[in-house]
């Protein structure tokens, strides 16, 4: 117990994950008391299922934020990938082809962001904002204000099925987080990401191929967005016109709630996953308790604000070395 507390006090990311776990238990208990439907196996599995897209995207977002980057337009990548997937299905292609096409589309769009932010040194928020506009335009022009419907649900078991009694959504999430964990903690790439997030100039001087690492990080998030699009299509069997509009903000919120610093260098996947579950649990619980879903954004934004403000107040005693470029400029 003592060593656990020691560990928590030394690692802010682990401490945040622990706080979130407690928050999930407390808030979940509260919803359980308020609604008899909340703490049922069915509902909890349902929360997992609707969390899948966000969880997958948030894993990639965390790696990006650790590197000091950000992608505010990942929803656009998800939308365009979903359309590519939908059109591929409509053209009669089998899953065996549709899956790599979807993943490839996402990775390609992500790599474009990576080139803008890496080689061309455009500030990430501007680059990803700009490309998001362009992707949204592409989406509207391709599907012209209507939905793509009636897609085959052959991949639906990935989200809705179960394996030995374990919901497949959980397995998919754990698989993605294991892969990202390996990239972030198991191989030198993870150290490179953190190094760039801490001090890009120093990382460059240390011989880290900064441009290539950035290209990879953005392309990886794009690939995960393509995967999320596959899962989305598998789950809903259509492509809606408003697909992906809030996912970037939610993924950033989950990442920051999970303890990642928007200044880069710090962040963990466990915290992010708990952040995702917390957000989705709150959304689900509010509906069950009878609060209009319109309040979702207020609650999530308020939570985010609370965490940020708490951090800010914690820093207040008055030395705050502010990196000249901050999270925005890298």
């Amino acid at each position, binding site marked *: 117990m003592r060593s656990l507390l020691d560990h928590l006090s030394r690692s802010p990311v682990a401490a945040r994950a622990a706080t979130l776990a407690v928050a999930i238990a407390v808030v979940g208990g509260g919803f359980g008391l308020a609604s008899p439907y909340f703490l049922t196996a069915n509902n909890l599995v349902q929360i997992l299922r609707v969390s899948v897209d966000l969880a997958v995207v948030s894993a990639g977002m965390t790696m990006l934020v650790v590197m000091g980057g950000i992608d505010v337009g990942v929803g656009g990548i998800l939308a365009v990938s979903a359309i590519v997937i939908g059109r591929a299905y409509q053209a009669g292609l089998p899953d065996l082809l549709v899956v790599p096409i979807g993943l490839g589309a996402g990775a390609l769009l992500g790599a474009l962001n990576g080139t803008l932010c890496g080689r061309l040194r*455009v*500030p990430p928020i501007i680059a990803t*904002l*700009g490309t998001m*506009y362009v992707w949204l335009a592409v*989406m509207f022009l391709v599907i012209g204000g209507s939905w793509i419907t009636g897609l085959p649900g052959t991949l639906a078991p990935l989200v809705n099925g179960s394996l030995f009694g374990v919901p497949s959504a959980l397995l998919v999430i754990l698989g993605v987080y294991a892969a990202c964990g390996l990239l972030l903690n198991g191989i030198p790439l993870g150290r490179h990401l953190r190094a760039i997030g801490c001090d890009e100039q120093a990382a460059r001087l240390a011989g880290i191929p900064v441009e290539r690492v950035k290209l990879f990080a953005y392309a990886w998030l794009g690939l995960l967005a393509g995967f999320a699009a596959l899962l989305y299509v598998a789950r809903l069997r259509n492509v809606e016109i408003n697909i992906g509009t809030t996912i970037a903000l939610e993924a950033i919120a989950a990442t920051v709630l999970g303890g990642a610093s*928007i200044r880069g260098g710090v962040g963990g996947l466990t915290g992010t996953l708990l952040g995702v579950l917390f957000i989705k649990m709150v959304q689900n619980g509010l509906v069950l308790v009878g609060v*209009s879903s319109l309040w979702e954004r207020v609650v999530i934004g308020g939570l985010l604000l609370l965490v940020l403000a708490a951090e800010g107040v914690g820093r207040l005693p008055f030395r705050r070395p*502010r990196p000249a470029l901050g999270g925005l*400029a890298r």
Partner: protein
Amino acid sequence: MTLPRDPVALRVLVLLALEAAALVAASLLSPFFLQASTLPYLLQYVPVLGLLGMGQSLVMLAGGPGIDLSAGAILSLTGLAVAALATAGAGLPAACLLGLALGAALGALNGLLVAVLAIPSLMATLATLFVYGGLALAVTGGVPVTGVPAGFGWLGQGAVAGVPNSVLFVLAPVAAALHVMRTRTALGSHIVACGNDEAAARLLGIRVVAVRLGLYTLSGALAALGSLVLLSWFLAARPDAGAGFELLAVTVAVLGGTSILGGQGGIPGTLLAVLVVTTLQVGLQLANISPAWQLGAVGTLLLLGVGLNLRLERGGGGRG
């Protein structure tokens, strides 16, 4: 032909060329564009984006790096508040003043988070974008507030000699005041100093925190002013009135030559950029081309603007 070395003058030239290109493109796209009635129509769209863009430019100018993503949400929320007050029978001046105060207060909260608590501006204003925009939707249930007294339409619907009142009596004076403030006063130099080198500004005795706090507050107040113009134009307040404006405001600020890192930029560039964006939008609209192209055009302009800034900044030897 030699180009001016001064980056601001060069930017103005580039924007004038862009505007000319936009005018040509718009008149090629639609036979209706080159008519006398188009100009007032076009100008009608300028003030709201102009007000938001100027707020955004000043916030960016003071460095940090600063950005205000919540301005559009502030516009939505204050518009609803003023409309609710006006329909509830409050006097128009009182309702408008309260709206401006609310906008300033919401902006001051941003400033508090960014300047005092040192939360990165992107995150802080993203969170307040969620909260303000969400509140606007949640409080109204997504339904517009209508029934604003028609007497309120003078500002947004009236015109003098073809120039909309909102340009003549709101945008022009505010822009002139801000331009003078930026170029002719100590405060203006202080803002630029904060953006150029925060540590040096602090050593000079400039109260960096106070300057930035003030600019976020100003940005909120300008958004509220924009909401008054919109409200007076449509006599109704939509809970999502400002959605999309935050990104447009960033676009015009950047396209207008404001450095995303601070220290460079000005009001004339921003206003010209507003004109370029509005010309394109109105042109595409008149040509009855899908609004999707507008989105795409704005995104391209944004990337173009940043690319241009980076080139000019590196070429001019301003910053590395």
